[in-house]
């Protein structure tokens, strides 16, 4: 399929009521509509691959704590019900989420000028990165370009599915040298965060000594707070997505409070 030419505008300075003569090219780019299905399918598969085991795991820990605290087998009746309910809870909103994703895909609009990168997404205030403040332009083959500014979270991701991607890529190369992603470091940090999060979560739920369990709980809360901060800092992410992630992190943070409450209620 041939690429459609991006929209080109020569911005008239008179529009601004400004006397200075300015002539520049402003070009608008949108995502390739036909790439939506395959991209979303792949993204959804990756998403479900961690979300279902994680939610089932959280439910399992909750049941384990309940049965231990109540000293009853009642809580175990939750397990088959939860095992059935949790995937339904995750799978039911998918059709609506797909509709929203389609809308976001269609509304994605990147405006590029000599020194300005301006991204417009549905429901999110536009994100702008100016040429002099570009910190890094990272290219990940098969995904796209990430243009970062010094402000945490103010970054623009340009997917390879953008119509006219090569043109934008060449333009950004004139701004700054493209860098390869530091995959090894990113993976290491990702694994480290996951190990700390899951380790402190399991420890705060399972360690018999309440003092050590609460110490693990403090580590867990600090990790969750950092992760929440990172999510909230993101400028090009919609509020629904942020809320969803905050809820997931909140579920983790719930465990130490739950453990403490049961320790105080059932001190034996």
């Amino acid at each position, binding site marked *: 399929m041939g690429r459609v030419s991006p929209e080109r*505008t020569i*911005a008239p*300075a008179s*529009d*601004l009521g*400004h006397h*200075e003569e*300015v002539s*520049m090219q*402003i070009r*608008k780019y949108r995502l390739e509509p036909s790439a939506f299905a395959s991209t979303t399918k792949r993204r959804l598969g990756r998403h479900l691959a961690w979300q279902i085991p994680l939610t089932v795991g959280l439910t399992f820990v909750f049941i384990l704590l309940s049965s231990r605290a109540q000293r009853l087998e*009642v809580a175990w*009746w*939750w397990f088959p*019900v*939860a095992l059935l*309910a949790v995937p339904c*809870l995750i799978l039911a909103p998918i059709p609506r989420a797909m509709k929203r994703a389609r809308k976001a895909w269609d*509304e994605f*609009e990147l*405006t590029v*000028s*000599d*020194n*300005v990168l*301006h991204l*417009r*997404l*549905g*429901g*999110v*205030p*536009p994100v*702008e990165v*100016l*040429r*002099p403040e570009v910190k890094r332009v990272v290219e990940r083959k098969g995904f796209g370009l990430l243009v970062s500014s010094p402000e945490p979270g103010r970054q623009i991701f340009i997917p390879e599915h953008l119509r006219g991607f090569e043109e934008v890529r060449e*333009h950004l190369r*004139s701004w700054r040298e493209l860098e390869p992603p530091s995959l090894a470091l990113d993976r290491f940090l990702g694994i480290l965060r996951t190990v700390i999060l899951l380790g402190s979560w399991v420890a705060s739920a399972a360690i018999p000594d309440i003092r050590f369990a609460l110490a693990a709980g403090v580590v867990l809360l600090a990790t969750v707070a950092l992760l929440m901060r990172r999510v*909230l800092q993101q400028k090009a992410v*919609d*509020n*629904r997505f*942020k*809320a*969803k992630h*905050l*809820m997931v992190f*909140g579920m983790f943070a719930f465990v130490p409070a739950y453990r403490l409450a049961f320790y105080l209620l059932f001190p034996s």
Partner: protein
Amino acid sequence: MNAHPPSPEDLRLELRQVRAASGPPGEPQPSVARFVARQGLIFLLVIEVVFVLSAALFYYLR
């Protein structure tokens, strides 16, 4: 493309032109807190239903 770094005044002007070309921003979304409250409520409702179901199941199989 400009090879030289632009002056702050040129940059401001260019930014205004890009914003004007890009058009008005879309309708703003509800806040994160509102989404959390809404999704949290749905989650609690589902948990409640699951709890009632499991209690009924336990009572029936006892």
